[in-house]
């Protein structure tokens, strides 16, 4: 049975193809269209999925959209009516936006793929999140919590899931919290207030929080409070996201917390204003964590289960996830590699397979590598055409060579196998560097990633050595599999892991099992033999404002535009012979034209 899942039109659209109960391909549209956060209908992603599996559109048994468009329309219209007449500016925009395209999903899918309307199905947004979190996790029976900004009406839901090997699957949602009361919207509002991009830069707030102290806790607790039934509610006088499209916080919010930060103004942590913003980030981060912990504790008491599957964009908050693990009572927490909306494509398809069609449960491969594979020979060809020398090496020689590069403080762009699905680079489209000094962190920030100095870099460590360098609690290894938890770097190693140790002594570590990425595991081993520490700095292979690279040509163009020293694609290795390779090439090109 071939089921295509689609997520689109809000942010980060994606497609996933499930064949006989197992994902065969899943890819975000941005990785193919090369527009970061591309929300358009994921036509290229769909084509990639079909091409990779050799399936024609008429062989699809179902196409599942990850939410119910009419229910979403109902929410937008109702909120506009409730906010009358303040919503007069937002109303035409919202109607044009929804009625212009988004509510006609059945017709759109049908016209793009040529499949009959009866084959097009719809799951609920949080149902898709729940399915992504539960059905991709190696657990049989778990509590499920999903939290994001908003789906149709739900912003957070709790429930449980149970599946039997080769048997039936059940996913239940007990209850939900509805818009406008939303943890995701709360965090996004603070993201906007702190001058970052909503739906994109929430992780910057988390990074900034480590530099502050929660001195504004009292103020933040005024905008969100607990309800008698154990949920939470926002004080809507402090918000405007539910009434206008222009601003998410109200003047009262500004009166409470002070003037917002203007985008483009750098955050200078040595000034009182910079520290105020960091304190503000720390305060909202703590409130988010406290609220999630309370909700999860209640869920644990209610279900008595030991496993929790966490989905939705809020599950990308690694600091909160680590606290959930420590304080909620759950022994294991499963966060999928793509817990956000993109991941819903896979969840919707799996939900359709297991629940709608009632197909028996199947164990799924426990990795994030569902995208197109990289072709090393493409890099060799490009290098040859540009007059550079690229070596084509066998695995062992390549790993030795790259380990030498890293030990010599060279920065390596690394592309192998299938592309990751989700926002994290987990070893197939990564930039690796030596993790030992703060200078390396600054160099990466300055010369490659061009990003704010307060943002940390993540490490990758083999599972065998993880607890030696990081203080990972029991169950934490699972959370760290897809870089979903933030854990302390052991004190004795912090001075030797300066590039990946955040200001508060933590790191968003990836713990790598050899079976998930054997070549990277071998590289960590080889690097450990040379330096004594088998840990590498692992950051996504992209430049600021660009999506993670997919094909070798994209890696190559990135390599030429920044100060990455070595590029590896498959078995091909290319090294910048001099630090001025870009300049030389530039001069030569201009000469040729002249």
């Amino acid at each position: 049975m071939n089921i295509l899942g689609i997520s689109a039109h809000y942010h980060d659209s994606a497609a996933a193809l499930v064949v006989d109960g197992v994902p065969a391909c899943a890819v975000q549209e941005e990785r193919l269209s090369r527009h970061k956060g591309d929300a358009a209908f994921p036509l290229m992603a769909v084509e990639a999925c079909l091409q990779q599996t050799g399936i024609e559109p008429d062989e699809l048994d179902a196409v599942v959209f990850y939410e119910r468009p009419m229910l979403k329309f109902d929410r937008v219209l109702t909120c506009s009516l409730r906010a009358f007449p303040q919503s007069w500016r937002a109303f035409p925009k919202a109607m044009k936006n929804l009625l212009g395209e988004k509510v006609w999903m059945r017709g759109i899918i049908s016209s793009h793929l040529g499949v009959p309307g009866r084959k097009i199905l719809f799951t609920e947004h949080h149902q898709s999140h729940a399915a992504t979190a539960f059905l991709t996790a190696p657990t049989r029976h778990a509590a499920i919590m999903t939290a994001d900004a908003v789906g149709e009406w739900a912003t957070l839901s709790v429930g449980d899931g149970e599946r039997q090997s080769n048997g039936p699957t059940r996913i239940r949602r007990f209850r939900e919290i509805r818009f406008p009361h939303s943890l995701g919207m709360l965090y996004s509002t603070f993201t906007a207030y702190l001058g970052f991009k909503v739906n994109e830069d929430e992780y910057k707030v988390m990074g900034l929080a480590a530099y502050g102290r929660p001195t504004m806790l009292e103020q933040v607790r005024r905008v969100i409070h607990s309800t008698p039934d154990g949920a939470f509610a926002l004080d809507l006088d402090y918000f405007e996201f539910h009434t206008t499209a222009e601003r998410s916080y109200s003047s009262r919010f500004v009166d409470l917390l002070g003037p917002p930060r203007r985008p483009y103004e750098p955050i200078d942590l040595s000034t009182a204003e910079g520290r105020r913003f960091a304190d503000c980030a720390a305060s909202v981060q703590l409130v988010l964590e406290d609220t999630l912990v309370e909700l999860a504790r209640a869920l644990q008491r209610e279900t008595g289960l030991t496993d929790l599957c966490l989905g939705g964009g809020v599950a990308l908050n690694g600091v909160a996830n680590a606290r959930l693990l420590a304080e909620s009572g759950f022994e294991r927490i499963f966060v999928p590699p793509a817990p956000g909306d993109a991941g819903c494509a896979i969840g919707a398809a799996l939900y359709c397979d297991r629940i709608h069609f009632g197909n028996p449960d199947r164990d799924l491969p426990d990795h994030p590598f569902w995208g197109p594979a990289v072709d090393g020979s493409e890099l060799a060809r490009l290098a040859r055409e540009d007059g550079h020398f690229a070596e084509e090496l066998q695995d062992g020689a390549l790993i030795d060579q790259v380990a030498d590069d890293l030990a010599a403080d060279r920065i390596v762009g690394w592309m192998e196998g299938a592309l990751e699905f989700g926002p994290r680079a987990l070893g197939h489209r990564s930039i690796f560097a030596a993790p030992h000094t703060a200078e390396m962190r600054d160099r990466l920030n300055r010369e490659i990633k061009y990003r704010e100095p307060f943002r940390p870099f993540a490490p990758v460590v083999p599972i065998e050595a993880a607890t030696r360098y990081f203080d990972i609690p029991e169950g934490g290894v699972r959370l760290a599999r897809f870089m979903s938890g933030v854990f302390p770097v052991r004190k004795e190693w912090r001075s030797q892991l300066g590039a990946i140790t955040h200001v508060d002594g933590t790191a968003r570590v990836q713990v790598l099992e050899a079976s998930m990425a054997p070549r990277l595991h071998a590289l960590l081993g080889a690097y450990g033999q040379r330096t004594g520490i088998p840990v590498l700095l692992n950051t996504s292979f992209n430049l600021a404002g660009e999506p993670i690279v997919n094909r070798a040509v994209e890696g190559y163009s990135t390599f030429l535009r920044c100060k990455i020293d070595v590029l590896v694609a498959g078995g091909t290795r290319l090294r910048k012979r001099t630090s001025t390779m870009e300049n030389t090439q530039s001069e030569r090109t201009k000469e040729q034209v002249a």
Partner: protein
Amino acid sequence: MLMMDSARSHERSTVFDRMLAPVHRWIWSDANRRVQKLFRFGETETDGGRDILRAAEVTSDPLLRRLYLEHAIDEFRHGVLFRHRAAALLKASTSRSTPGFKGEWLAPGGHGLDDLQVDGESDCDMLAFLHLSEKAAASRFSIYRDVMEHDLPTRAIFEEILHDETFHMNYTLTQLVRVEPQRHSRHLWRARLSRLWKAYLRLATGLAGILGSTLLTIQYFVLLPPFAWLARRAARRERCGWTIVSSERSNSLERQY
């Protein structure tokens, strides 16, 4: 040499742009407007850079790949120049307000503004399109430079960018002639018509948008008040906290509700 002369002649603005010089002068005279426009230019240049970068990644011509890459790097740098200048002006300004009129419709018709499907374009079409875009942007930037006597650092940025535009105009035309020696003029004409068509589409979409917004706003105030009253009454009865999810609600995947 001939090419260089032709390019230099485009560092001068077109008659139409020169006619609009007083309007441009007025728009750029306000510091807040200047900041907004510079930020917008920064975004446009960066978007254009991404499009050209994509062109570098999809072309099969190694020389074009290198040239596009150079071009993209220039555009990214222009974006940074604009953003840094805007940020500097913003820092110097005391006002936190945004001007009501931003003069967006007068923004240069650079490639960042067009809906460019780079993956589907041939090298010839891409080169012709880029050549004309660079030419139009150079003409507009030269008038901006000329009206910027009161802000020398911003003027210097336009000056620097104009210098790059000369290279971009040159190479796109030279390469178009190389890639398509017989029919390059035809490609240029087709690109001109395509730009005209896209301009018409932008105008038509803009007008349709205004019309649609007006009609929806009228409906909002005429038809919605009773429903708004009902919706607010219903909202008052809604209680905060948990809502139970009934097991029947999500049973059918066939409905969109």
